[in-house]
């Protein structure tokens, strides 16, 4: 379960980091706006959280191998969504925009 949680944390981290970039934010929202400034630190926070979860579940020895691979898979999922159907992230972007004012 912790591994799944780590993958979810890493994927949401990658999604947030991608959305913090103007190119992807604008493709998702179809506006000329910018992502709230809190999106990027939140993304890094989720990436950090995934590392903590992996180390808790696997220890450092396996964690050192598993975590970079999980980040890679998360980045791949993020890229696939952005390349094939960025609109999937519209509601997430709206939520972030509303929260971030």
């Amino acid at each position: 379960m912790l591994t799944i949680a780590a993958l979810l944390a890493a994927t949401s981290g990658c999604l947030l980091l991608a959305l913090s970039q103007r190119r992807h934010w604008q493709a998702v929202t179809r506006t000329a706006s910018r992502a709230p400034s809190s999106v990027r630190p939140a993304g890094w926070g989720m990436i950090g959280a995934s590392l903590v979860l992996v180390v808790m579940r696997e220890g450092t020895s396996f964690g050192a191998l598993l975590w970079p691979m999980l980040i890679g898979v998360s980045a791949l999922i993020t890229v696939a969504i952005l390349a094939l159907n960025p609109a999937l992230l519209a509601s997430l972007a709206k939520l972030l925009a509303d929260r971030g004012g």
Partner: protein
Amino acid sequence: MARITPDFRHAMHWAHTWLGVVLGIVMFAVFWMGTLTIFAPEIDQWMIPETRIVHDERDVSYDHLLAQIPPEARASDYINFVVPSERHPAIGFFYQGADDTFHDNALDPATGQPLEQTDSLAGSGFFYPFHLSLMIEWQNLGYWIVGLAALAMLILLVSGLFIHRKIIAEFFVFRPHRKARRATLDLHNLSSLIGLPFYFLMPFSGLLIFAFLYLPWGISEAFDGDMDAAYAEMTGDYAVPARSGRTAPLASVDAMKRKAEALWSAEEGVPVKTNLVRVLNHGDANAVVYFRNTFPDDRVVLSEYVAVFDGPSGRLIRNFSLPPIGEASAWIQGAHFMQFGHWPLRWLYFLGGLGGCVMIATGMLFWLRSRESRLANASLGYRVVEALTIGGVSGIILATGAFLIANRLLPADATMVGTGRAGLEIRVFWLVWLGTYLHAAILRERAWGQQCWAIAAAGVTAVMLNAATTSNNFLTASWSGHRAVAIMDIVLLAGAGLAACTAMRLTARTDPLGAPAALPAE
């Protein structure tokens, strides 16, 4: 902070381009075969159906086995058993005959009797050695070529980071619908960045494993040039005395095994099992019994413990455990060998390996795409690289499929011009691979699509032949506990599907006048 000048970037670009063009095919072959090696034991079970045994945690008695092996083996100086496990359910059994030839058998763990095995080198005997030596044994040349490719890969990864101008801004960017050249570069950058730690780890750890071959001097210096002494210090090897000529009965090997495992488990704090049981000088007063936990199941590190016993008395004469610095090196080696029992990580390695294949293939494709308008019709060099790229990428995958098909089709007693069945399977691999280069040289761009169709057909054929020639097909295999066979079949079908999709996209986009086709890896 030093700035990256245009000159520096240009130099990096030059190195990246030409190392990639010259060694790309070797890197692809090593990565492809290395990726298959991750599942070598499962491939072995698929290709040698007699070893499809459902593993149970029974205790094998090595005293019993030693009593029932053939007299020639019992008289051997070197008898080696590999303890069965879930991934290697048969007992591995090797011995050195009186004429110094090595005999490699598998024993049924239930009866201890030799299994009548299909004569095939399969995954562990072909894919695995191919990925570290390309099967070129002459003067260790293959090891040196692979070492050079590994070093080149490290240089390519570093130089790639310098020449990629927008790593951060384009980290999550992939534009499959842009022009083929742009899409190829996007895919190259994407596949490189998402697997970067893995791509560093693999060539680096591979070079480290063979450091004693590539850079022996630093190691031998500390041991006054005696590499055997260095090796003994690093791995716990024990210098076995020659036979004395006096016969002496062997004490209980099972008792020694229990003692070794108890010692290791006490030291580690968790149960530690032996993987190797080796009897040297069997029946002689100088007999020695050697145990090793080569592949711990629940840890990354490789081969931490060795225990050596005096054969006739059963007395412990050497108990080796890795010193801390050895642990560091053993972790890196263990990370490469990937023999631990961590299935999610094993699949991630498999994905990482395929990602590496995509990275290398798209790198070579980008070289072609960048030059096709200028050179495609005029330059011999371009045509050579084009044919080498097609044969080196889709060709080796097709040759692998042909190897599996040959394994299921060749009769048990097949021989041709002095080559036995296992050798013939490998001949088929090489011939098909060579054929794909010729095919690519003649048909050029169109060869991509045709070879992808052939890969798809080969994958489906292999699965059908497995169902027809063995008692397991992919539907029944998992019911009967043969998970390895079921997964192998499913991966073959998935690979065939992927190849067919690629072939369809290639064929759809190929201009009838022979203009450039689309990406095979899109």
